[in-house]
């Protein structure tokens, strides 16, 4: 990656951290979250995560690939099931990667 781009990106993420974590402490103590913003606060993080995860799993390069030759989406589904049943992040990561490697060895060789 280009160095200056990476530097700006890191600066940008740092700014995002500062705004969200320390920002509320900068504002006066009486300020409350407006009700209209409340829905965004509750729903946006899950929507953002889903919108980031989905393309990362189903695209190989720029082509949509929902066959077993793309083991990433299967590993993703497996990871979701593992977390829903075990509530363990370690089991989710290890189990998901195990699915990924097994399918890759099986179908892609």
């Amino acid at each position, binding site marked *: *990656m280009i160095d200056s*781009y*990476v530097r*700006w*990106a*890191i600066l*940008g*993420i740092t700014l*995002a*951290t*500062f*705004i*969200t*974590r*320390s*920002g*509320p*402490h*900068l504002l006066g*103590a009486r300020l*409350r*979250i407006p009700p209209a913003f409340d*829905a*965004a*606060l*509750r*729903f*946006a*993080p*899950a*929507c*953002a*995560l*889903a*919108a*980031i*995860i*989905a*393309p*990362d*799993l*189903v*695209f190989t390069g*720029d082509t*949509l690939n929902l066959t077993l030759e793309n083991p*990433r989406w299967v*590993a*993703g589904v497996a990871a*979701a099931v593992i*977390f829903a049943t075990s*509530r*363990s*992040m*370690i089991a*989710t*990561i290890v189990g*998901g*990667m195990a699915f*990924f*490697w097994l399918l890759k060895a099986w179908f892609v060789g």
Partner: protein
Amino acid sequence: MSESSVIGAAATSPREAFRHGVRDLLPAAPGVFAWGLVTGVAMVKSGLGVPESIVMSLVAYAGSAQLAALPLMATFAPIWLIVVTAVIVNLRFVVYSVMTRQHFAGLSMNRRLWLGYLVGDIMFARFSALLERQPDYPHRIAYYFGGASCNWMWWQVSSIIGILAATRIPVSWGLELAGTLTLIALLVPLCRQWPVLAGASVAAATSVLAHGLPLRLGLALGIALGVATAVVVERGREEA
């Protein structure tokens, strides 16, 4: 997890409260460690250099935002979109900071900003649980600082181990996928409510269908339609 905590015993000194905070965080430590390790590996495997990854980990201190930014950075998405995405993924910290603010009110601005920087999912949950059971807990700031600084250290150590180890791991292992799997582990518990599940599904589908749009705008579109769907579903359920 809360069964093993020391909640219930009032601290007699800031030092003891600090120790309580550290002890209450320990049950979550293995999970934090695994998450940090994976974030470190994923940063390097997505193409970031080792020094850049370490700087990003230290200044951003936001695993989910860092992981979310990686696919965007890999495709040279515009910086503003990376900032907006990171803010959205971090929105939960706004809630945490708004809710902890009253407890830090007497402190200097400098200290409040540092305590804000240290807020995290786990320590916020512990702090809330403590104050719910013991609204008069003395030395609560020392308690918070103990757990939050311990979480920070644990996270940074595991991230840096991941970053350094990643250079020895072959690209063909596809370990950057572990970063996405971590995000799935964060997403699943959020989807226990119907409106969130509906919104997340629409966001995912939109983001995939609109993947061809320039500047990764499919992501922004997905989030907007997802939130709108969640709001509509919630209203429908309230009226039903």
